[in-house]
Structures are given as C-alpha cells and as structure tokens.
C-alpha cells in the first residue's frame, strides 16, 4: 500500500522531525510554565516575537547562535510581562495570556516596520543548514531522520533531556513542581512561590520564542507575520497530551508532526484525488484530539494550575 511505503521512507521521518522541532521547544516552554502552576496563553504571540527577533538579529549582522539568544531574551521579556501580571498580581491567566499574544504580535509588526520601512519583499538570511552526524546518520530510516537535521533540531532534543533532568533530578525542579502542586508547602519551606513561578514563566517563554525562531532561522530563511499559524495553540494541547511530562510531550510533538507529514504525502496518492484537501489538512488535528482523549484520562493535572498564590492567605 501507498501509506506503508510512505511510513517506511526515511524522507517521511526526516520531514516529521523537521516539522516537530519548533513544537518541541514551544511545548517544553509551556510545560515548564504549567508545571509551576501558570497557564501561558501568550505562547502564540511569543513565538511570533521570537521568530522575528532571531531573524532580525541575524539580518542585522549577528551570527545565527546570537540570533537564537536574542530570540530567547525577547521571549523572556514577554515572560516577565506575563508573570508580573499573573503571579504577584494574580490576574486572570486567560486574559493576561491572550493579552500578551495580542501585544507581542502587534509589537512585532511595529518593530518590523520600524526596522524595515521600505522593502519590496521580506529579506532573507543565511539560515541553519542540516548538519550530518557521522556514523549515526547511516542507520536506516532513523539515521537520516534524527541525525541529518539542523543544529536547532539537535538543540530541541537536548532541551528535552535538560528540562526532564532539572524537573525530576534537582532541588530546583522539585520546588518548581511543588509550586504547581502545593504552593503553600513551598512557602512553608521558606521558598518564594512568586520567584519560582515567575522564573518558570520567564524561562518557559524564552523557549517558546526559540520555537518561533526555528521557523525563520531553520525551517525557512525569512519572516512573515502569520507564519506561526496556530502552532502555539497546538502546543497547549500537546502539554495535556504529554500529561505534563517532557518525554511524553516530545512524543506528542513528533506524533502530530508525523500526521502532518503524512497528510501532505497522502494528498498525492490516488486517495487524494477523491477526498477534499480540507480533510487532509484537518487530519493531524483530528488524530491529535483523539489521541488527547485517550492519553489525558490518566494525566495528572498540576493541582495548583491557574490558582494564584497569596502568601499567608488561607
């Protein structure tokens, strides 16, 4: 069958990992925020800002890695805005999050016009190129898929390991998870819930911005306003899908991306001629929703997610 051939091709898995990479950064960022008890709906706008900031930095003459750092820093700034409003002030996380998305998107547009008042087409940069890892990339199918990607993709996978290690193997991770489960206990230990939550949102927002930067610095080499195109919202769902665990969230991102890579290819099989293209475009979302229903039944939601904490209040 056609679909079996597609699933067994290395290029399919290469595409899936490539599509998953920006999602991996962003889903990790969201996961860190939520594990500390803060839902960050600023994700979509922060990705737009990151996509612009990283690309603009490189266009202005910095090297690619500095561009990634700039994107991370811009993400952290929006994280600071978000967390200041949601943590010490305890405002509605839904309203603040959507507000940050609108603010980040509009500021990005403003900055774009400020930096590039008269251009005929969005300028291009020299983006990250695939870097083949010797030996490992010779493994059939998974070799080229996992080990012939751009450096940012490798960074995404490394980030999953680092975040998992910090969350489960360090006192900082314990405190962060506790802030999302039982903030009063954290306060009783003499730790500042406010500092932990704000730190988590700031760091998480930085990662989201790098996810956005992947689009302009690795997947493509230019910036467009609508190019994030809902990827941030997908990551909110992927955190639930991953049951707030980095490893499972990684799988979720790859699964979603694989569905996307698959629908692109199935459109060109004989099936594609009969079925409206919209059905194919819907496929990754529908399958993700189905998977979400199955996976989330046993998920443990952080108990204090979206619950503001006021020290000393009972």
């Amino acid at each position, binding site marked *: 069958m056609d679909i079996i051939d597609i699933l067994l091709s290395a290029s399919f898995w290469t595409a899936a990992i490539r599509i998953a990479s920006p999602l991996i950064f962003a889903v990790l960022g969201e996961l860190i925020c939520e594990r500390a008890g803060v839902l960050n709906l600023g994700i979509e706008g922060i990705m737009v800002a990151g996509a612009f900031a990283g690309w603009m930095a490189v266009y202005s003459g910095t090297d690619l890695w500095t561009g990634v750092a700039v994107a991370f820093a811009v993400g952290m700034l929006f994280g600071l805005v978000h967390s200041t409003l949601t943590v010490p002030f305890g405002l509605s996380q839904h309203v603040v999050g959507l507000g940050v998305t609108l603010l980040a998107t509009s500021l990005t*547009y403003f900055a774009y016009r400020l930096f590039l008042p008269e251009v*005929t*087409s969005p300028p291009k940069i020299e983006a990250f190129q695939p870097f083949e890892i010797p030996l490992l990339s010779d493994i059939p199918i998974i070799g080229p898929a996992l080990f012939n990607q751009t450096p940012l993709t490798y960074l995404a996978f490394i980030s999953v390991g680092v975040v998992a290690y910090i969350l489960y193997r360090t006192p900082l991770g314990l405190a962060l998870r506790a802030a999302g489960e039982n903030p009063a206990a954290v306060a009783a230990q003499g730790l500042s819930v406010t500092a932990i939550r704000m730190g988590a949102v700031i760091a998480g927002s930085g990662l989201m911005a790098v996810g956005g930067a992947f689009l302009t610095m690795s997947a*493509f080499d230019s910036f467009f306003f*609508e190019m994030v195109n809902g990827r941030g919202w997908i990551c909110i769902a992927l955190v639930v899908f991953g049951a707030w665990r980095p490893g499972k969230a990684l799988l979720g991102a790859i699964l979603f991306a694989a569905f*996307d890579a698959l629908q*692109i290819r199935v*459109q060109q099989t004989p099936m594609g001629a009969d079925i409206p293209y919209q059905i194919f*475009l819907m496929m990754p979302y529908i399958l993700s929703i189905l998977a979400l229903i199955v996976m989330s039944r046993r998920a443990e939601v952080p108990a204090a997610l979206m619950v503001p904490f006021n020290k000393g209040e009972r």
Partner: protein
Amino acid sequence: MTIATKPGFSRRRFLTTTAGVALASGAAFGPSRLMAAEPIKCAGIYTVPVEQQWVSRIHKAAMIAQERGDLDYTFTENVSNTDYARVMREYAESGYTLIIGEMFAVEQEAREVAAEYPEIAFLMGSSFKPDDALPNMAVFDNYIQDASYLTGIIAGSMTETGNIGMVGGFPIPEVNRLMHAFMAGVRETRPDATFQVSFIGSWFDPPKAKETAFAMIENGADMLYAERFGVSDAAKEQGILAIGNVIDTQADYPETVVASAIWHFEPTLDKAIEEVRAGTFKAADYGVYSYMIEGGSSIAPLGTFEGKVPQEALDLVESRTAEILSGAYVTEVNDEEPKSQ
C-alpha cells in the same frame, strides 16, 4: 497610460525612494500636467504588509500614479479582516475619494460600507461580480492567466520527468484560474505531463509550503509552480526548477526560477483614475485590465535562463503572445478547483 508596464523598470529602485520623495515630486510635476488638475485623494487598505506579493503590485502602481501627480496616496497595511470595515469608514470620513483594497474575506461588510458613502469610489479586489445596485463599487482581480499559460509552455519544455508539483494557498478563483492556465500551457509542450496539486490552507506559512513542495519532489516532481513563498526554496535546495507567480523572484533564486507570470496593476488603477476624474466611475468588473491585451500581465524576462530554454518553446511563446495581443487566442478562464492528475 502604460508607462509603468515597460519591462526593465526597477521595482526595487523605485520603492527604495521614500513616500516623501514621491510626494514631493508628485507635487512638483502635478500642476504642470495638462490633464491633472488636483491629485485624487486615494487610500489603500490591505490585510497584509505591502511587500507581500499580491498587494505589492497594487502598492507599486499607486506609488507610480502618485509620482506622476495623479494620486495623493496613503495606505494602511496589515489590517485584520475584523477591522477592515472600520478602516474603510475612517478613510471615507476623512475626505478620500478613491479607496482601493481587497475584500475577499469581507465581501458583505465592505459592500455595506460602500453603500453608506455613495460619493466615494471603491475599487476592491473581489471574487464576486460588480453589483449595479452599488454603483460606486468596482471589483478587480489578478486575471493574469495569459501570462500563466505562457510560463506553462516554458515549464513543459523544461521538465524532464513530466511530473509537475503545484502548491497553492486556498483553491479560490484567482488561484485556480492561474493554475489551470499554467497546466494548459504545459500540455502544449508536454502533452503527457502529470500534475501534483496541494493546498496548504494558509497564505503565509512558508515552512508548510516548503514541506509540501519537498513531498512533491520526493514523489517525482522536477518542476514546481510556486504560487506561495517557500516553494522556490524547496526547489532551490533540491536543485530543481520553479515557475514564479505575480512577482519576479528570479533575483532571489537565479538558478531555480525559470520564468514568472507578472501582474501589472497599473492599467486597472489608471482606468479607475480616468473614470473618477471624468465623474463616470461605476460598478464594473476591472478584471479585464489584468489581461495581457490590456498590459495587465506579462511574462518576466528569462534573465539567468537566457539560452537554456528550448527554441521551439520560445517560438511558441512568441506566436501565442502575438495571438493573445491580437485577440486571436483567448486563454480559458477556469475557476474550478484543480486536482492532481
């Protein structure tokens, strides 16, 4: 009237001159012109930034008209569809007499606003026909199927596998008719060609367009029809060829983009200016002013591919161009959604 459509005019050089310079020169030359009494106050309302391909053609034509002294032009870009009617009203209230824009996503609302300001001329990009009950609104679209057909002839002569990939945003009439014309052109030189057609459900998601193009290349395509940004990039990375659409992108992809079908908005705008000046602006379909016979579209110079395209194909392009310009050949306008075949 067709000064602007002369080949060789540098869009880049033109747009780097600021609006201020254009305004100043417009003011300087305006009064000396015989016809131009007062420049028409014109506003452009666009849902995307002005450098994005389709809108860039409108913006360019308006800037030229302003430099010539025919327009006093201003614009608002990146207006969301939910905000479109408000921006229309703002310009209508502040004394603009010609408003140009795109109402593909706000057809109903835009018409309602136009009905409230019967003394103002609205020239809007639309998938629908003009309405005589709304005499102050005319519609246009990029009917550049003639040029798309000609690029198809070249594409058919350059493909080796006969397998052509086409990535589109949404299957709306203005996309569909160009794809069909391109396919008809390909069949002139490659009757057995097969086509892979995909829509990505978004106008500006270059990474997705690129992924879709990669999948088509894996599936045997060696020539891509680049309706969206991102497609030419996939072709460039994989070392195959592409055909451009609406704007000439060969400068960015010198080894990849063979030919492009170019849209010139100038005839459409100039017609509107003429009608507004004469006080005869009425509900009409300005789509025809994008036809090649009106100077509304052309095929980009071969540039880096000079000498690489088979002579028979170029001969056919030349004879067909002559037939199109004389009216002997009319490219079919087919708005149906194209399918892989």
